[in-house]
C-alpha cells in the first residue's frame, strides 16, 4: 500500500504490479510496471528507496533482465475455426487448460510483447476474455543487496530498568 500510495500520490500510472514472497519468508519482491517519462524514471526509483520498508528499489531496464508474464485466454470457437485456434496456440506454445464445445481456455507464458501478439491473433478468431498476471522480472546482473547495519542504541540495560514502579 505504501508503495502504490507513493506512486499514485505523485501521479504515476501503474500498469501492472506483482508481489510474492521470496526465499526469505519475511521479505517480498514487488515488480511494478510504471508509465513515466524517461527523465522521471530516476526520481521514481529514488522515491521508492526512501521508503523505510523498501530494502532496495532498482530499475530493471538498467541492465540485462528476463521479463515474463502469465496469461489465461478464454476463446469461443465454432466447428470451422476450432482446429485453427489450436494451431495458433501451438505456435505460441500455449497450453490448453480447458476444452468444451463452446471453446477453449488457454494458458500462455512469455515476455509481454509475445503475449500481446498472441492476444491480437486470438482476437481475430472471435470473442476472447483475457486475464494477465503482470510482469515478473529478474535481473541477470550480479548486483548485491546493500542493506544497512544495525545501529546501537544509547541506554544501558541497567538504567533502563528504573521504571516508575511495576503495576
Amino acid at each position: 500500500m505504501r508503495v502504490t500510495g507513493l506512486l499514485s500520490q505523485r501521479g504515476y500510472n501503474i500498469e501492472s504490479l506483482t508481489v510474492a514472497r521470496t526465499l526469505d519468508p519475511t521479505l517480498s519482491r514487488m515488480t511494478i510496471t510504471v508509465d513515466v517519462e524517461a527523465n522521471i524514471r530516476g526520481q521514481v526509483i529514488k522515491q521508492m528507496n526512501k521508503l523505510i520498508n523498501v530494502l532496495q528499489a532498482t530499475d530493471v531496464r538498467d541492465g540485462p533482465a528476463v521479463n515474463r508474464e502469465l496469461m489465461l485466454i478464454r476463446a469461443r470457437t465454432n466447428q470451422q475455426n476450432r482446429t485453427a485456434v489450436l494451431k495458433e496456440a501451438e505456435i505460441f506454445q500455449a497450453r490448453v487448460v480447458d476444452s468444451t464445445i463452446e471453446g477453449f481456455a488457454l494458458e500462455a507464458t512469455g515476455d509481454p510483447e509475445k503475449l500481446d501478439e498472441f492476444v491480437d491473433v486470438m482476437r481475430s478468431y472471435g470473442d476472447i476474455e483475457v486475464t494477465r498476471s503482470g510482469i515478473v522480472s529478474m535481473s541477470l546482473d550480479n548486483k548485491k543487496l546493500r542493506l544497512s547495519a544495525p545501529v546501537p542504541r544509547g541506554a544501558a540495560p541497567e538504567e533502563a530498568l528504573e521504571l516508575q514502579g511495576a503495576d
Partner: protein
Amino acid sequence: MSSNLYSGAKILLNCLAQENVECIFGYPGGVTLPLYDALYDHPIRHVLVRHEQNAAFAAQGYARTTGKVGVCCATSGPGATNLVTGLVDAMMDSIPIVALTGQVSTKLMGSDAFQEADTFGITRSATKHNFLVKDIKDLPRVIHEAFYISASGRPGPVLIDVTKDVFQGQAHYTPVTEIHLPGYKVYSEGHSGQIRRAAQMMWEAQRPFVYAGGGIIAANASEELRTLIETLDAPAVTTLMGLGALAAEHPNFISMPGMHGSYAANMGMSHADLIIALGVRFDDRVTGRLSAFAPHAKVIHVDIDPAEIGKNRQADLPIVGDVKRVLPKFTAELIELAAAKSKNASDRQNWWRQIRAWKEEHPLTPETSETEIKPQHLMAEIDRLSGGRAIVASDVGQHQMWAAQLIRFNEPRLWINSGGLGSMGFGLPAAIGAQFARPDKLVFALVGDGGFQMSIPELATIANHALPIKIIVMNNGYLGMVRQWQELFYNNRLSQVQLDSFPDAEKLAGAYGFKGRTVEAVKDMPAALKEAVAEPGPYLLNVKVSPFENVFPMVPAGGAIDEMVLRQPQPVEV
C-alpha cells in the same frame, strides 16, 4: 531483565524518557485514558493545548528551536485527524516530530467503532514513516525506531498509532539495545572525489554564489557554512527556511532569494557562473520558472536526501551527504588550493562590485509614513528590539514575507515559520513550543489577523502557563497575501478576503487574564512594542497597519526570478 510486569502505557513513557523527551504537547481522549493515567504521576512534562492541530504545531516549534525531536499526542479518530495538517507541515519542512495517537482496541478495529479512524492509512503520506502497534511486545522497538527515523538523515515526522489494549496490556520490559532497519540508509560523508572536484570548481569560479537553506539548520552546520563562505569569499543567500543559518549581519549575506526575495539576491542567483547549493531543494518559490533559472551557472548540489538531487535542477556536481561533514572538507580543499596558487582576485572583486551595485539599486528598506503604520515599519521596530537575537515565530502571509525581508536573524533556530506548506495558524502554537523550549528567550508570535484568528484557542494555553509570549498581530483587516494577488492578477476583485469583526484586543486578552492593546497611530507604535516586550507576562498587541500594502519585490507565478516587479505598478494615465 526485570521479572515485573509493566503496562504498555508505562513502557511507552519509559521509552520516551530514554529518548530524552522533556515535553509532550497533547490533548487526552477516550482511548488514551490509560496513557494519561500513567502520565499523571510521571515526571515527563505534558502541556495541554486546546486543539490537537496546535499540539502538532507546538511540537514543531519545540523541534525547530532545539533541534530535538518534538512530541505531540492525541486520541483516536478526530484527535488523530486533527494532527494531519501539522504532520504534513513537518514533512514539507523536514522537522523531526513524533506523534503518538491512540487507536481503538484491536478487536474493534475496522468495525467503525466510536472515534475510530484509519489513522495509519490517513497519515501514510503525511509522515516520513508511521507505525501501528497492536502487540505490546513491539512497543519499545517501535518507539526507538520512530525517534531514530525522525531525527536521522533528512528529518521528518513519524506517527505511532497505539491501540487501547496495548496501553492497557501488561508485559515484561526488555530494553532495546540496537535499531535494525535494513532498508533505511543514512548518507553522511559525501564522496571524496566529488568533494575534491567541487572545491576545484569553487576555486575556479569567477562568479560563485552560495545558496544555503533549511538543511544547514537541520544539520547544525552554521559554523561550517560561515567558514566556507569566508574561505571562498563568495556572496551567500539563505532561503526562507535557512534564515539565520548565516548571520544576517555577516558581510557576505545577501538576504533571501525567490518570489519575495531581494533584488540583489535574485540578480546574483541569475548571473552567477557557479551556484553552490547546500541543504536546499530548488523549491519553486526560490527558482521561479525553472527553464529560466540561473541559465549560465553550473550547479554543485549537496544534500542528505538523494531524491532531491536532480529533482528540479540538474546538478553538475552532485554530492549526497550531511553538510556538517561535507562543508569542512570543502574548506580544507580550498585552503590547500589557495596555498598552491594565487587567487584570481580581480574577477571576484568585479563580482562583488556588481553585487554591491545591485544591493544599492534596490535595497530592502522599510517604508515609513507619517499618517499610518506601514507593515514594513512595524518589522523594522521588531528588528530593533530583537537585535538579531529574539525568537520570531511567524504565521503565514504578507507579514511573514516582510519579517523575512526586514528582521535580522544572527543565529539559527530563531526564525520559526511554516515554509513549504504555508499553514496559517502556525505562528501562535509554534511560539508556545518555542517558549517552552527556550524559557530564557524573548519570543514573538508574529501573526496576521487571519492566522491569529485560526489559533485563538491557544490563548488559554498561554494564559494557563503565563508564557511571556509577545503576540504581535499585523492587522490590515484582510487576508493580505490573497488580496495582493487579487489586486495584481484578478482586477482587484476582492473576493472573500475582508476579515471583518476582529475582536477588541484589550478585551480579548483581558478575557484570558492578560494584557492586550490596539495601536493605530504611527507615533504610538514603537512605544507600544516596547511596552509589550517589557511586560513580564504574555501580551497581545494588535497593530493596525495600512490595509493595501503589497509585498515587493515580487516574482509573479511562472515568472523568472530576474523579472521582478519592484514596486507598486502605477495606474496608467489614459
